Protein backbone atom coordinates (compact mmCIF):
# COMPACT_ATOMS: atom_id res chain seq x y z
CA UNK A 1 0.00 0.00 0.00
CA UNK A 2 1.36 3.40 -0.85
CA UNK A 3 0.19 6.44 1.02
CA UNK A 4 -1.62 9.19 -0.77
CA UNK A 5 -1.68 12.73 0.53
CA UNK A 6 -4.97 12.28 2.39
CA UNK A 7 -3.66 9.18 4.20
CA UNK A 8 -0.55 11.10 5.20
CA UNK A 9 -2.65 13.95 6.54
CA UNK A 10 -4.79 11.51 8.53
CA UNK A 11 -1.65 9.89 9.95
CA UNK A 12 -0.22 13.27 10.89
CA UNK A 13 -3.48 14.28 12.54
CA UNK A 14 -3.80 11.09 14.62
CA UNK A 15 -0.26 9.79 15.25
CA UNK A 16 -0.04 11.49 18.63
CA UNK A 17 -3.55 10.35 19.54
CA UNK A 18 -7.25 10.61 18.76
CA UNK A 19 -9.08 13.64 20.17
CA UNK A 20 -10.93 12.63 23.33
CA UNK A 21 -14.31 13.97 22.29
CA UNK A 22 -17.58 12.13 21.65
CA UNK A 23 -17.08 12.24 17.85
CA UNK A 24 -13.30 11.86 17.44
CA UNK A 25 -13.33 10.97 13.74
CA UNK A 26 -15.61 13.90 13.01
CA UNK A 27 -13.13 16.15 14.84
CA UNK A 28 -10.18 14.80 12.84
CA UNK A 29 -12.14 15.23 9.62
CA UNK A 30 -13.13 18.79 10.52
CA UNK A 31 -9.46 19.69 10.96
CA UNK A 32 -8.68 18.22 7.54
CA UNK A 33 -11.74 19.51 5.69
CA UNK A 34 -13.29 16.08 5.15
CA UNK A 35 -16.10 14.13 6.80
CA UNK A 36 -15.77 11.79 9.77
CA UNK A 37 -17.04 9.05 7.47
CA UNK A 38 -14.07 9.56 5.13
CA UNK A 39 -11.65 9.43 8.06
CA UNK A 40 -13.19 6.15 9.22
CA UNK A 41 -13.09 4.65 5.72
CA UNK A 42 -9.40 5.48 5.33
CA UNK A 43 -8.53 4.15 8.78
CA UNK A 44 -10.47 0.97 8.05
CA UNK A 45 -8.55 0.52 4.79
CA UNK A 46 -5.28 1.06 6.66
CA UNK A 47 -6.34 -1.52 9.27
CA UNK A 48 -7.18 -4.01 6.50
CA UNK A 49 -3.76 -3.43 4.95
CA UNK A 50 -1.95 -3.76 8.26
CA UNK A 51 -0.76 -0.18 8.03
CA UNK A 52 -2.70 0.45 11.22
CA UNK A 53 -1.74 -2.30 13.64
CA UNK A 54 -4.51 -1.49 16.08
CA UNK A 55 -6.54 1.42 17.41
CA UNK A 56 -6.43 1.64 21.17
CA UNK A 57 -4.50 2.39 24.31
CA UNK A 58 -0.72 2.37 24.57
CA UNK A 59 0.07 1.66 28.21
CA UNK A 60 3.12 2.81 30.10
CA UNK A 61 4.09 -0.60 31.42
CA UNK A 62 6.28 0.80 34.18
CA UNK A 63 3.39 2.76 35.62
CA UNK A 64 1.21 -0.36 35.51
CA UNK A 65 3.59 -2.45 37.58
CA UNK A 66 5.66 -4.12 34.86
CA UNK A 67 8.87 -2.61 36.13
CA UNK A 68 11.17 -5.36 34.86
CA UNK A 69 11.52 -5.08 31.09
CA UNK A 70 14.29 -7.24 29.77
CA UNK A 71 15.57 -7.42 26.25
CA UNK A 72 16.93 -10.95 26.26
CA UNK A 73 19.54 -11.53 23.57
CA UNK A 74 20.90 -14.87 22.43
CA UNK A 75 23.81 -16.09 20.35
CA UNK A 76 22.17 -18.93 18.46
CA UNK A 77 23.73 -21.14 15.79
CA UNK A 78 22.87 -19.56 12.43
CA UNK A 79 21.53 -22.78 10.94
CA UNK A 80 19.01 -23.18 13.76
CA UNK A 81 18.03 -19.62 14.62
CA UNK A 82 14.96 -19.44 12.37
CA UNK A 83 13.46 -22.69 13.58
CA UNK A 84 14.15 -21.87 17.23
CA UNK A 85 13.12 -18.21 16.94
CA UNK A 86 9.71 -19.38 15.75
CA UNK A 87 9.35 -21.44 18.94
CA UNK A 88 10.66 -18.71 21.26
CA UNK A 89 8.11 -16.33 19.72
CA UNK A 90 5.34 -18.73 20.74
CA UNK A 91 6.22 -18.56 24.43
CA UNK A 92 3.36 -16.67 26.10
CA UNK A 93 5.55 -14.16 27.94
CA UNK A 94 7.57 -13.14 24.86
CA UNK A 95 6.12 -9.99 23.32
CA UNK A 96 8.52 -9.33 20.44
CA UNK A 97 10.95 -11.76 18.88
CA UNK A 98 13.32 -10.99 16.04
CA UNK A 99 16.41 -12.27 14.30
CA UNK A 100 18.89 -9.41 13.92
CA UNK A 101 22.45 -9.07 12.61
CA UNK A 102 25.50 -9.54 14.81
CA UNK A 103 27.89 -6.60 15.11
CA UNK A 104 31.22 -8.21 15.89
CA UNK A 105 33.17 -7.59 18.02
CA UNK A 106 30.80 -5.51 20.17
CA UNK A 107 27.72 -7.65 19.66
CA UNK A 108 27.47 -11.39 19.03
CA UNK A 109 23.76 -11.96 19.66
CA UNK A 110 21.41 -12.72 16.76
CA UNK A 111 18.08 -13.49 18.48
CA UNK A 112 16.18 -10.87 20.47
CA UNK A 113 13.17 -11.67 22.68
CA UNK A 114 11.47 -9.08 24.88
CA UNK A 115 10.50 -10.28 28.34
CA UNK A 116 8.28 -8.41 30.79
CA UNK A 117 7.61 -9.00 34.45
CA UNK A 118 6.73 -7.39 37.72
CA UNK A 119 10.20 -8.23 39.03
CA UNK A 120 13.59 -9.19 37.67
CA UNK A 121 13.18 -12.61 39.28
CA UNK A 122 10.13 -13.15 37.09
CA UNK A 123 12.11 -12.14 34.00
CA UNK A 124 15.06 -14.37 34.98
CA UNK A 125 12.67 -17.32 35.30
CA UNK A 126 11.32 -16.57 31.82
CA UNK A 127 14.86 -16.38 30.45
CA UNK A 128 15.58 -19.80 31.91
CA UNK A 129 12.66 -21.19 29.95
CA UNK A 130 14.02 -19.62 26.76
CA UNK A 131 17.47 -21.05 27.55
CA UNK A 132 15.97 -24.51 28.05
CA UNK A 133 14.21 -24.29 24.71
CA UNK A 134 17.36 -23.18 22.88
CA UNK A 135 19.51 -25.84 24.51
CA UNK A 136 22.98 -26.32 23.08
CA UNK A 137 22.15 -24.28 19.96
CA UNK A 138 22.75 -21.21 22.15
CA UNK A 139 26.32 -20.25 23.01
CA UNK A 140 25.72 -17.20 25.22
CA UNK A 141 23.01 -14.83 26.29
CA UNK A 142 22.43 -11.64 28.21
CA UNK A 143 19.45 -9.66 29.45
CA UNK A 144 19.45 -5.90 29.02
CA UNK A 145 17.01 -4.30 31.42
CA UNK A 146 15.55 -0.96 30.54
CA UNK A 147 16.26 1.36 33.44
CA UNK A 148 14.79 4.56 31.99
CA UNK A 149 12.37 5.50 29.23
CA UNK A 150 14.16 8.40 27.56
CA UNK A 151 11.54 8.81 24.85
CA UNK A 152 8.36 7.03 23.79
CA UNK A 153 6.44 8.96 21.19
CA UNK A 154 6.05 6.45 18.39
CA UNK A 155 6.19 7.32 14.72
CA UNK A 156 6.12 10.99 13.74
CA UNK A 157 5.85 11.70 10.06
CA UNK A 158 6.37 15.27 9.05
CA UNK A 159 5.02 17.64 6.44
CA UNK A 160 5.90 16.49 2.96
Amino acid at each position, binding site marked *: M*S*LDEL*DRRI*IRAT*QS*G*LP*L*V*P*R*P*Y*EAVGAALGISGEQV*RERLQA*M*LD*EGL*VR*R*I*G*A*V*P*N*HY*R*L*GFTANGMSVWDVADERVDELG*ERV*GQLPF*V*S*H*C*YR*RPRRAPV*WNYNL*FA*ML*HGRSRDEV*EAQAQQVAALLGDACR*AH*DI*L*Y*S*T*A*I*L*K*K*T*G*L*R*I*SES
Partner: protein
Amino acid sequence: MASPDDLRLIDRLHGGFPLCDRPFAEVAATLGCTEDMLIDRLQRLLAHGDLTRFGPLFQIERAGGRFVLAAMAVPEQRFETVAAQLGAMPEIAHNYRRESAHPDQPGATPLNMWFVIAVEHADQVDRVTQDIEAMTGLPVYAFPKEREFFVELRLPLLPGGHHVPG
Protein backbone atom coordinates in the same frame (compact mmCIF):
# COMPACT_ATOMS: atom_id res chain seq x y z
CA MET B 1 -1.20 4.01 40.43
CA ALA B 2 -4.00 2.82 38.19
CA SER B 3 -6.98 1.21 39.92
CA PRO B 4 -8.32 -2.26 39.04
CA ASP B 5 -11.07 -0.51 37.09
CA ASP B 6 -8.46 1.45 35.16
CA LEU B 7 -6.59 -1.78 34.33
CA ARG B 8 -9.78 -3.36 33.09
CA LEU B 9 -10.41 -0.31 30.93
CA ILE B 10 -6.86 -0.32 29.52
CA ASP B 11 -7.09 -4.02 28.78
CA ARG B 12 -10.47 -3.57 27.12
CA LEU B 13 -9.10 -0.73 24.99
CA HIS B 14 -5.95 -2.55 23.88
CA GLY B 15 -7.27 -2.60 20.35
CA GLY B 16 -10.45 -2.77 18.37
CA PHE B 17 -11.57 0.76 19.17
CA PRO B 18 -14.64 1.04 16.96
CA LEU B 19 -14.68 2.98 13.72
CA CYS B 20 -18.15 4.44 14.21
CA ASP B 21 -19.61 7.87 14.80
CA ARG B 22 -19.67 7.66 18.62
CA PRO B 23 -16.99 5.09 19.49
CA PHE B 24 -16.62 6.12 23.15
CA ALA B 25 -20.36 5.69 23.66
CA GLU B 26 -20.20 2.23 22.09
CA VAL B 27 -17.30 1.11 24.31
CA ALA B 28 -18.85 2.74 27.39
CA ALA B 29 -22.02 0.69 26.88
CA THR B 30 -19.98 -2.54 27.04
CA LEU B 31 -18.23 -1.34 30.20
CA GLY B 32 -21.41 -0.22 31.92
CA CYS B 33 -20.40 3.44 32.17
CA THR B 34 -21.28 6.62 30.33
CA GLU B 35 -19.50 8.13 27.35
CA ASP B 36 -18.44 11.13 29.49
CA MET B 37 -17.06 8.90 32.23
CA LEU B 38 -15.00 6.93 29.74
CA ILE B 39 -13.58 10.06 28.13
CA ASP B 40 -12.78 11.55 31.55
CA ARG B 41 -10.96 8.41 32.64
CA LEU B 42 -8.91 8.25 29.45
CA GLN B 43 -7.96 11.90 29.90
CA ARG B 44 -6.87 11.19 33.45
CA LEU B 45 -4.86 8.08 32.50
CA LEU B 46 -3.07 10.05 29.78
CA ALA B 47 -2.45 13.03 32.06
CA HIS B 48 -0.99 10.77 34.76
CA GLY B 49 1.20 8.94 32.29
CA ASP B 50 -0.46 5.54 32.78
CA LEU B 51 -1.12 5.64 29.04
CA THR B 52 1.40 7.14 26.66
CA ARG B 53 -1.07 7.45 23.80
CA PHE B 54 -4.58 6.61 22.69
CA GLY B 55 -5.30 6.16 19.02
CA PRO B 56 -4.14 4.32 15.91
CA LEU B 57 -0.74 2.62 15.93
CA PHE B 58 0.78 2.87 12.50
CA GLN B 59 2.91 0.12 11.02
CA ILE B 60 4.64 2.36 8.54
CA GLU B 61 6.68 -0.51 7.07
CA ARG B 62 3.53 -1.55 5.22
CA ALA B 63 3.83 1.69 3.28
CA GLY B 64 7.56 1.68 2.61
CA GLY B 65 8.70 3.10 5.94
CA ARG B 66 11.10 1.56 8.40
CA PHE B 67 11.46 1.01 12.12
CA VAL B 68 15.06 0.18 12.94
CA LEU B 69 16.46 -0.69 16.35
CA ALA B 70 19.85 0.87 16.98
CA ALA B 71 22.23 1.25 19.90
CA MET B 72 25.16 3.29 21.11
CA ALA B 73 27.71 3.04 23.90
CA VAL B 74 27.36 6.45 25.51
CA PRO B 75 29.87 7.56 28.15
CA GLU B 76 28.12 8.17 31.46
CA GLN B 77 29.10 11.83 31.71
CA ARG B 78 27.51 12.52 28.32
CA PHE B 79 24.46 10.34 28.71
CA GLU B 80 21.90 13.06 29.42
CA THR B 81 23.20 15.32 26.68
CA VAL B 82 23.03 12.58 24.06
CA ALA B 83 19.56 11.52 25.27
CA ALA B 84 18.39 15.12 24.81
CA GLN B 85 19.93 15.27 21.32
CA LEU B 86 18.06 12.14 20.27
CA GLY B 87 14.96 13.36 22.07
CA ALA B 88 14.85 16.37 19.78
CA MET B 89 14.91 14.27 16.60
CA PRO B 90 11.44 13.48 15.19
CA GLU B 91 12.88 10.34 13.54
CA ILE B 92 13.54 8.78 16.95
CA ALA B 93 10.35 7.05 18.09
CA HIS B 94 11.57 5.42 21.30
CA ASN B 95 14.72 5.56 23.36
CA TYR B 96 15.61 3.46 26.39
CA ARG B 97 18.52 3.27 28.72
CA ARG B 98 19.42 -0.39 29.08
CA GLU B 99 21.83 -2.11 31.41
CA SER B 100 23.16 -5.63 31.20
CA ALA B 101 22.02 -8.08 33.85
CA HIS B 102 25.60 -9.37 33.91
CA PRO B 103 27.79 -6.30 33.41
CA ASP B 104 30.86 -8.07 34.76
CA GLN B 105 30.75 -11.13 32.58
CA PRO B 106 33.23 -11.31 29.72
CA GLY B 107 31.63 -10.05 26.55
CA ALA B 108 28.96 -8.06 28.40
CA THR B 109 27.69 -5.32 26.14
CA PRO B 110 28.71 -1.74 26.69
CA LEU B 111 25.74 -0.62 24.59
CA ASN B 112 23.60 1.37 27.00
CA MET B 113 21.33 3.49 24.80
CA TRP B 114 18.82 1.64 22.62
CA PHE B 115 16.50 3.53 20.33
CA VAL B 116 14.13 3.04 17.42
CA ILE B 117 14.53 5.04 14.24
CA ALA B 118 11.11 5.44 12.58
CA VAL B 119 11.05 6.93 9.10
CA GLU B 120 8.56 7.12 6.29
CA HIS B 121 11.02 6.05 3.61
CA ALA B 122 13.49 3.21 4.01
CA ASP B 123 16.28 5.21 2.42
CA GLN B 124 16.17 7.79 5.25
CA VAL B 125 17.61 5.36 7.81
CA ASP B 126 21.24 5.77 6.75
CA ARG B 127 21.00 9.54 6.83
CA VAL B 128 19.54 9.46 10.35
CA THR B 129 22.30 7.19 11.66
CA GLN B 130 24.93 9.37 9.97
CA ASP B 131 23.37 12.49 11.50
CA ILE B 132 23.51 10.92 14.96
CA GLU B 133 27.12 9.86 14.47
CA ALA B 134 28.08 13.34 13.28
CA MET B 135 26.18 15.01 16.12
CA THR B 136 27.50 12.79 18.91
CA GLY B 137 30.82 11.53 17.56
CA LEU B 138 29.75 8.03 18.66
CA PRO B 139 29.29 4.98 16.45
CA VAL B 140 25.69 3.89 15.89
CA TYR B 141 25.07 0.15 15.63
CA ALA B 142 21.91 -0.58 13.66
CA PHE B 143 20.06 -3.83 14.20
CA PRO B 144 17.50 -4.03 11.40
CA LYS B 145 15.18 -6.97 11.82
CA GLU B 146 16.07 -9.79 9.47
CA ARG B 147 13.10 -11.86 10.49
CA GLU B 148 10.10 -11.25 12.74
CA PHE B 149 8.92 -14.25 14.72
CA PHE B 150 6.18 -12.71 16.80
CA VAL B 151 4.99 -9.25 17.75
CA GLU B 152 2.16 -8.59 20.12
CA LEU B 153 2.85 -6.59 23.20
CA ARG B 154 -0.10 -7.32 25.40
CA LEU B 155 0.70 -7.89 29.01
CA PRO B 156 -1.57 -9.61 31.51
CA LEU B 157 -2.74 -6.50 33.37
CA LEU B 158 -5.53 -8.16 35.28
CA PRO B 159 -5.25 -10.37 38.35
CA GLY B 160 -4.77 -13.98 37.34
CA GLY B 161 -3.04 -12.88 34.19
CA HIS B 162 -6.04 -13.28 31.92
CA HIS B 163 -7.29 -10.80 29.44
CA VAL B 164 -10.89 -9.75 29.29
CA PRO B 165 -12.33 -11.23 26.11
CA GLY B 166 -13.23 -8.83 23.34
